[in-house]
């Protein structure tokens, strides 16, 4: 028996010492039924999770204006998306917001994470709590408070600079980016802090004993080691920013329509094959993002 066969054998029937699997004992009637129920629940859950998405995708290829009646296969709705200027411009706005918010929040979040994990300072515990708040506070509450804040702040700036009405500062893409950074810093900081905690601090100490200053130690030792964490945080920030509707809704203004804002106004009206097509493309994008995050996770492990 080769080593590989032996391993396969141990996979199909785990040894008693393997703590990962429930012990295989002769099942009572109760246990058999329990297992069946678990299986039924699993099947139900995946059908529940996937049936609506599948239906959505299938009907994006439906050759009929009546969204939910199958009339034959077509690509026309995808073709129409490419020539729809409102959707194209909303898409680029979303990319601009997501890329800017990700860049800023990844840098600020990483710096915050290093400060929290490697330094002691007064009110550190308090700041730790504040740092978690944007993750916990419901997005609608954060949205309306930023709406109130930007209205007041822009009003003050416009009055102070005596800007005429037509060139006055208004909410738009910039305010959306600022808002996205505000909630993303916390998410990035949480992810990066985990990777800072995971690696051996002795490596940093060794570098300093060998005469490296703090910057060199960071650049040559710390940064490479936490890179997967930083990338993971950036990916999370990018996804959250790209998907965000509620906070964007309350902080945007004229010319600041992102893809979720455009999609929401369409969904609100009715159902249509175009929305199915946009949704399918957005779904594809999320599958790519999950794959990216999974491969990052594997690299981290």
């Amino acid at each position: 028996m080769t080593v590989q066969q032996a391993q396969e054998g141990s996979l199909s029937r785990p040894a008693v010492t393997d703590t990962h699997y429930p012990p295989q004992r002769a099942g009572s009637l109760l246990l058999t039924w329990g297992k069946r129920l678990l299986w039924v629940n699993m099947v139900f859950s995946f059908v529940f999770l996937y049936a609506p998405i599948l239906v959505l995708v299938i009907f994006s290829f439906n050759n009929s204006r009546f969204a939910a009646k199958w009339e034959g296969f077509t690509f026309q709705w995808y073709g129409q998306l490419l020539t729809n200027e409102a959707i194209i411009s909303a898409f680029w706005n979303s990319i601009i917001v997501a890329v800017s918010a990700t860049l800023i929040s990844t840098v600020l979040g990483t710096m915050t994470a290093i400060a929290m994990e490697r330094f002691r300072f007064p009110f550190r515990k308090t700041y730790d709590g504040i740092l978690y708040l944007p993750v916990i506070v419901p997005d609608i509450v954060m949205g309306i408070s930023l709406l109130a804040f930007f209205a007041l702040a822009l009003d003050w700036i416009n009055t102070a600079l005596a800007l005429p009405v037509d060139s006055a500062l208004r909410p738009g893409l910039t305010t959306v980016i600022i808002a996205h950074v505000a909630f993303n810093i916390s998410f990035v900081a949480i992810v990066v802090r985990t990777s800072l905690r995971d690696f051996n601090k002795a490596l940093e100490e060794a570098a300093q004993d060998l005469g490296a200053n703090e910057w060199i130690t960071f650049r040559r030792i710390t940064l490479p080691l936490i890179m997967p964490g930083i990338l993971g945080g950036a990916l999370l920030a990018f996804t959250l920013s790209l998907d965000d509707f509620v906070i964007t809704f309350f902080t945007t203004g004229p010319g600041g329509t992102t893809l979720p804002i455009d999609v929401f106004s369409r969904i609100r009206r009715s159902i249509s094959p175009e929305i199915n097509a946009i949704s399918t493309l957005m779904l594809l994008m999320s599958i790519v993002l999950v794959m990216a995050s999974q491969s990052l996770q594997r690299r981290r492990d």
Partner: protein
Amino acid sequence: MGKRRSVYLSFLLGPGAFWLLMFFVIPSLLVVVYSFMERSSSGGVIWNFSLEAYTKLFAFDPDSLFVNDFVVIFLRSFWWAILTTVACLLIGYPLAFYIAQQKPFTRTVMLFMVMIPFWTNFLVRTYAWKFILNNNGLINTFLSELSLPRVPLINTPTAVLIGLVYGSLPFMVLPLYASIEKFDYTLVEAGQDLGANYFRIFTRVFLPLTMPGVAAGCILVFIPAVGQYVVPTILGGGKVSMLGNLLAQQFGAALNWPFGSAIAVIFMILLMAGVLIYFTVEREEEAI
């Protein structure tokens, strides 16, 4: 060294702290201040102290089901969030348990299948149900093909609840899986050797040890569910409204910012109290 380190620290901490202070802490405090101001009918507030917003929120209305319609919306939002959390827990716990028992390959595939909806845009997932439940949606189109009468499905509490559970389920399964996966099954054997039956082992060993996952999952589901805006707007048509709709309405069409702020303040107080009570009860249970 000490001085240099404090320079590094302020360089590292400063920008992030400034951003959070300016665009998170101050806006939150501003809402508290706004809730004690007078309403300006053109949006914003008039800078005069007033308790009008709070008296409006708690004024007794004999025509309403309970105290007044705003309180009813509060109660409904919390009740629906509780129902959503319980439903997600009842489906999610056995699912996470099942996944954790699979062989590595199957486990990876199934986790991946939970993660795709987790990362999929919330609007898309909510729209999927509108597509099914709408008056010209999948079910009603199918019924009318069979010359059966259409049924009203959209803009009902059921539609909103389905949407809430559908949107939240992955947020329950992932933290549950993380804590069930860590479970050491030799403890089950120990329990069996000591003569405990499966029910006892589950309630006395398995459940308490996977409680951190349950707590994390419940919080991740409950808090976003109470403050939902997208689901009640799209699947409830604004007719079945929750706190999110009420807040959006006050800062939008109704232009009553102090009242909207007061709702947000009370909402946050209730939420924090709820989370605190939850953790206290849980800790006491652990102690027993």
